[in-house]
């Protein structure tokens, strides 16, 4: 059972990559991750050394994307910004997926008062837009990378709790679970061997799409000056500092935004390809 699911899942990535959309999107994502990891080896410049005489240089051979208000190479800062933005959003979604799966699985599996409490809490969070939840949590924890990760993680918690709970509830009543139970399997065995592995596929797809949303949310928090603090570059912080120079040097704000938009676009395209390859129930995207 376990080996079987694993095979279809890894096969799905291959099948997703076999479509033209999947190849382009996957290629871009690979490039962004590669650049984020190997940024120091790919650029001759430092992200934080200021060079004031060279401020606001337009794109040229030496500085492909120009320089910012402190004369720092913009391409370098976007490359290092990918590090911050990708790590913050993936850790954040990691938090929501892990906590959401624990809460959702426990609620869906055991039912009773715990299930009702979780459902009420999820519905309450649902009535606040994610950006508001994140804004307020960052205000509580203080600006910075850690605060942003936790804030975004909590903002998307409800989504994964709800999704896992619904999955567990649906699978719980399948005949193979009943069969396993009548063979004497305990709660833990059923939960970890049968329910969670089968609930995992839609969660993985949703996590991928949510990572895209988290990148936008991270950029928005960074834009309000609440994300990574200077001189650490993140895509949001870059755009935030570019706002003041909107009329003087528009490339400072335009290019990091392009990086965000194209990356999130690629994540969505790849997610779509993955949904088709996995044949996850329609309607997941609408959830």
């Amino acid at each position, binding site marked *: 059972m376990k080996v079987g699911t694993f095979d279809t899942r890894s096969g799905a990535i291959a099948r997703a990559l076999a479509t033209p959309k999947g190849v382009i999107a996957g290629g871009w994502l690979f490039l962004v991750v590669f650049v984020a990891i190997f940024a120091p080896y790919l650029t001759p410049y430092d992200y934080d050394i200021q060079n004031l005489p060279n401020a606001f240089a337009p794109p040229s051979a030496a500085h492909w994307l120009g320089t910012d208000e402190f004369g720092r190479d913009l391409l370098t800062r976007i490359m290092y910004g990918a590090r911050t933005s990708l790590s913050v959003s993936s850790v954040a979604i990691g938090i929501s997926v892990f906590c959401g799966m624990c809460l959702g699985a426990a609620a869906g599996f055991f039912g009773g008062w715990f299930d009702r409490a979780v459902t009420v809490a999820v519905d309450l969070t649902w009535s606040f837009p994610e950006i508001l939840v994140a*804004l307020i949590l960052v205000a509580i924890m203080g600006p910075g990378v850690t605060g942003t990760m936790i804030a975004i993680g909590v903002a998307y918690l409800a989504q994964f709790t709800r999704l896992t709970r619904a999955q567990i509830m649906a699978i719980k009543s399948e005949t193979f679970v009943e069969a396993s139970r009548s063979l004497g399997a305990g709660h833990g065995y059923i939960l970890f061997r049968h329910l969670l592995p089968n609930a995992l596929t839609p969660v993985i797809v949703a996590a991928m799409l949510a990572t895209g949303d988290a990148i936008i949310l991270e950029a928005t928090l960074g834009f309000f000056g609440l994300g990574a603090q200077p001189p650490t570059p993140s895509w949001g912080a870059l755009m935030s500092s570019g706002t003041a120079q909107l009329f003087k040097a528009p490339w400072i704000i335009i290019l990091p*935004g392009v990086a965000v938009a194209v990356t999130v676009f690629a994540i969505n395209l790849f997610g779509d390809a993955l949904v088709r390859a996995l044949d996850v129930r329609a309607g997941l995207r609408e959830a």
Partner: protein
Amino acid sequence: MLGYIFRRLLLLVPVFLAVSVVIFSIIHLIPGDPIDNLLKIGSGPEQREIITARYGLDKPLVVQYWIWLSGVLQGDLGTAIVARRPVADLIAQALPHSLTLGLCALAFSTTFGIVLGVIAALNRDKFADQAIMGGVLLGSTMPGFWLGLLLILVFSVWLGMFPVSGARTWSALVLPVVTVGLGGTALVARVTRVAMIEAAQRDFVMLLHAKGMRPLRINLRHVLRHALIPVVTILSLRIGWILGGAVTVEVVFARPGLGTLLIKSLNQHDYPVVQACLLILAMAVMLGTLIGDVIQAAMDPRIRAALG
């Protein structure tokens, strides 16, 4: 139907109480003291105590909550600590700006989303479909504040067609509405497309084709009507999402709405204003969901029958 609306409204009461508790306790977790903004330089601890007592901030939290809640129920949202004006006044000034923006953006998303979704569904898997769906997806992957700034740069600064910021004229509304509306357009278009394609496979559609009705008439008169039901569901579920987008976009366009007020008060630790803004936004989301459900029941006789 009226009974259903009444029951739903009644259900909002406990939710409202729960939301108010959550908002109140969370606000008081924010570090930083609003009194800091009020004290003159060189004032001693006595002045701090006096001012703290004037705003009731020296009482236990439970008592503060009770005072706040009983005030809210009587329409008194308290006094802004930093702005030194009744919160209700600030909200009354900001709310119309946010409501116009939110409603226009909703209308924008719905109109364009449905039109694009129908065109995409009728040209399923052809070039028009892929171009539309790719285009709206790209529109929804751009951060709202960034898109707003870009539109300002192109249409206000370079082309001079619209004002850069503010809310004095109607033309100042165009760019914010487009910015907020684009994200929703993608959502509506996607749901409309899928719902149209699914509805077109029903038996009654085959019957209409068999009796010789023109395809365009079938699609617009019959298939679209079926497809609109999930669209309304999604819109009512994601109304808060659209409002959330409006918060950041308001700041970019310097519109004096709820979002701008909220961010400003959050930075100043002006608790009463933050509480009121959050409460109003949460209520707007809940009312939006309720209105969506009612419209859905009004559109779909099956739901109406189930409600009794």
